[in-house]
């Protein structure tokens, strides 16, 4: 229903990630476009996704949100296809389509009956090179994006906490900014800014085309040659590393917004995957997230929600895939009635200390691993999800081939390694804590109940 989703950081653990790469084929066009095809013949349908290696992490100050604004503008026509027609042509073929922007990428996709893959390629190739970005269309669409920001962030107290948290955790790296961008940057954005973004980043040599479905890889390759083959590559702007300085002390931020319940979000800087052969720490961190909150009886929920009843909700999360090679190990939760965010914070930190001091059990590890093995099978029931995985991994800078080894990498993690990463990275000086201080709905009314202690 909602058009043009925007992927914001989530606290869901990314354990549901992996497969044998059976049946996946990779091609490269001479203009640099990479094509990855996974044949899946269970149903006569196809998913096609174009992933650009351009996301909010590539934005500069004063132009935050432009990656996502451009994503909206990509539906506004080329010299051949006028504004809004892209969606109508896909709809007429029975297709579904949308797009989403993240910090690391922008992705456009269609789901179609398999005989219409050519239409998808034709339209995507066209808008990769021939977008007509007019002031008239921009001036309307930027208002839509501002409404999106109001709906997604400004009026959602927990999103505001997330925004403040990211900004505190990252002070130099663009991961500190939200994909949606600051409202003031949106208000001052021009169609030239969007055009500049398009000219900088939209090129075959900055894109990966992922196709999953009831197709033949060799025929998809021919089709890709036919439509994308004639596009010219570009010289891409230099990407600065923008390495985040080491954090040298705990950071705290407070957000006040109309709400009833307080909320706590905390995170430690931790490594993301860099060397796919040698790295083991990211896998150990992922297993740790699973031990803490992989299922309803995992440690955090069992101890803090069910046993001590200190919280009504609590979770942990970590994502090992990040193009910026930076990640956070996050914990969040909502204290129960009569409990404070401070009490919840202390309890969460105690759980972390317990891992550092006493480690995790083999039983807990086996449970996490069983989930990984099962997910590896379950995901084959969703072509879209399989395409998402391939696209994410490739755009972040790795080969889809790491999927093959992913379950083994997780299986190889030992209790000692989980304890070791906790000891090494989950340190107070490396911690950022954001809290929501709920405000009464009526600005003149007094807060109900006991004041919240921070």
């Amino acid at each position, binding site marked *: 229903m909602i058009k043009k989703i925007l992927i914001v950081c989530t606290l869901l653990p990314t354990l549901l990630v992996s497969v044998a790469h059976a049946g996946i084929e990779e091609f490269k066009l001479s203009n640099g476009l990479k094509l990855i095809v996974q044949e899946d013949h269970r149903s006569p349908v196809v998913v096609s996704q174009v992933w650009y290696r351009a996301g909010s992490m590539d934005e500069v100050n004063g132009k935050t949100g432009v990656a996502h604004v451009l994503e909206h503008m990509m539906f506004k026509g080329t010299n051949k296809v006028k504004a809004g027609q892209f*969606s109508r042509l896909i709809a007429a073929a029975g297709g579904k389509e949308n797009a989403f922007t993240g910090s690391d990428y922008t992705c456009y996709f269609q789901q179609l009956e398999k005989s219409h893959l050519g239409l998808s390629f034709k339209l995507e190739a066209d808008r990769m090179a021939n977008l007509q970005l007019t002031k008239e269309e921009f001036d309307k669409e930027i208002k839509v994006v501002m409404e999106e920001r109001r709906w997604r962030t400004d009026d959602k107290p927990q999103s505001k906490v997330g925004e403040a948290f990211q900004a505190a955790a990252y002070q130099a790296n663009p991961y500190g900014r939200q994909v949606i961008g600051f409202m003031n940057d949106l208000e001052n954005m021009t169609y030239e800014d969007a055009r500049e973004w398009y000219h900088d980043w939209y090129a075959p040599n900055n894109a990966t085309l992922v196709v999953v479905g009831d197709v033949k890889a060799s025929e998809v390759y021919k089709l890709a040659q036919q439509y994308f083959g004639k596009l010219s590559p570009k010289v891409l702007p230099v990407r600065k590393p923008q390495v985040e300085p080491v954090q040298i002390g705990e950071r705290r931020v407070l957000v006040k917004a109309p709400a009833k319940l307080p909320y706590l979000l905390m995170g430690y800087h931790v490594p993301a995957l860099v060397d796919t052969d040698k790295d083991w720490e990211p896998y150990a961190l992922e297993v740790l997230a699973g031990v803490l909150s992989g299922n309803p009886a995992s440690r955090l929920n069992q101890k803090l929600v069910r046993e001590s009843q200190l919280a009504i909700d609590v979770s942990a999360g970590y994502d090992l895939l990040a193009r910026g090679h930076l990640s956070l190990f996050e914990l969040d939760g909502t204290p129960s009635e009569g409990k404070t965010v401070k009490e919840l914070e202390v309890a969460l930190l105690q759980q972390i200390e317990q891992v550092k001091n006493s480690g995790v059990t083999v039983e807990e590890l086996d449970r996490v691993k069983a989930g990984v093995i099962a997910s590896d099978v379950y995901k084959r029931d969703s072509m879209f999800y399989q395409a998402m995985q391939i696209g994410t991994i490739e755009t972040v800078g790795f080969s889809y081939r790491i999927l093959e080894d992913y379950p083994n990498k997780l299986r190889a993690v030992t209790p000692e390694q989980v304890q070791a990463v906790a000891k090494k990275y989950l340190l107070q000086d490396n911690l950022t804590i954001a809290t929501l201080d709920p405000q009464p709905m009526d600005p003149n009314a007094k807060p109900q109940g006991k004041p919240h202690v921070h």
Partner: protein
Amino acid sequence: MSLKKIQTTLMLSFAMLMMNLSAEAGVKIQQWQTTTGAEVYFVENHDLPIVDLSVNFSAGSVRDTAEKSGLAGITRYLMALGAAGMSDEVIANKMADIGAILGGEFTSDRATFKLRTLSSVREQTQALEVFVKVLQKPDFPQTVLDREKARIIAGLQESATQPESIANKAFMAALYGKHPYSLEESGEVETVSKINREDLQAFYAKYYGAKGSVIAMMGDLTREQANQIAENLSGNLPKASAPEPIPSVILPSQAIEQRIAHPASQSHILLGYPGIKRGDADLFPLYVGNYILGGGGFVSRLTEEVREKRGLVYSVYSYFMPMAELGPFQIGLQTKKEQADVALNLVRETFDKFLKDGVTEKELTAAKANIIGGFPMRIDSNAKILDYLAMIGFYHLPLNYLDEYNGNVDKVTVAQIKETFNRRLKPENFVTIVVGDPKAN
């Protein structure tokens, strides 16, 4: 292993070819009744080593009363948190140990338990063992009830501050008056506080019988295995008579407009009227017509007028939610407070014009092309087929519902859409809710 895969692939391609020629949907549903009277809907498919199943009871919030609103939802929720002496922790760990996923859904009409497991013997056996106990031997532990009531109440209090929740609640209350569809699925702070263990036991005994329940199964099982599983699932359910029919919805006799103050930057606007039932003879003209009005995402009239031409919203939509009795027809949008009335008037104009002039042949052709052409994507996964099985069974739709789907869409005419919308929806009696009243701040 790889040889088997190739064979499967070839057979599947052949099946697809047949399907295209015969224009059939190609989902072969097997249907029977268990000895205790549960209805079973099964599709056998061995492509993936997965078993998906759901058990559906007519035990949604429509079975609640205003005094104990929330009871139906808490009953369903607590069933998975203690059964046959197993604690919530043991249940969750037993499922996690084998990578099985125990889930469920809860709506006004329906309480559903879902299970997804690997089909290998050890996994399947353990998952089903626990699942059967959850359905047949719930303990409703007092300590768990107390804990979960506190969590639900906290959630309700939080929802009462959030504009989207406030709008939805006000909309259903205004649309359905005293009908149980007006009841909030999670209940109310005051009513949840009153619910006790005996209430849960009595509700379970009354609404979780085999008669009237529907078991849907999809995946890597033989018919014989499916039969055995269905017998086990339904064998020791409470001995209850089939649940009584849900009362008819009384159509509103006058317009209701509520404006509720809220400090948010956007107004949340909902408009609507009681819509249709599952199996309703008007379903297809209304569904196809609504695609043109506000269901077809980017290409709908509402999106075109309100978002594309004027940039007033991020999202504007309309839908029919067919239920056992008349489910809601709803139009919804969010927009900056200062322009809320402009947007609301534009939505009303667009809708009035839609009623007055109907749709064009061109629009209808495009709508049919999308809905019919998109049919393969409705049934391209086990998870999706499972949900269709449960829906067909629970709402007593014909077994060939999916086979006839495209034909039913194709039959819809321009005249029929206009006539049906005008007969079924009365804008002069619409409910309108605006949370974040522009004039209140």
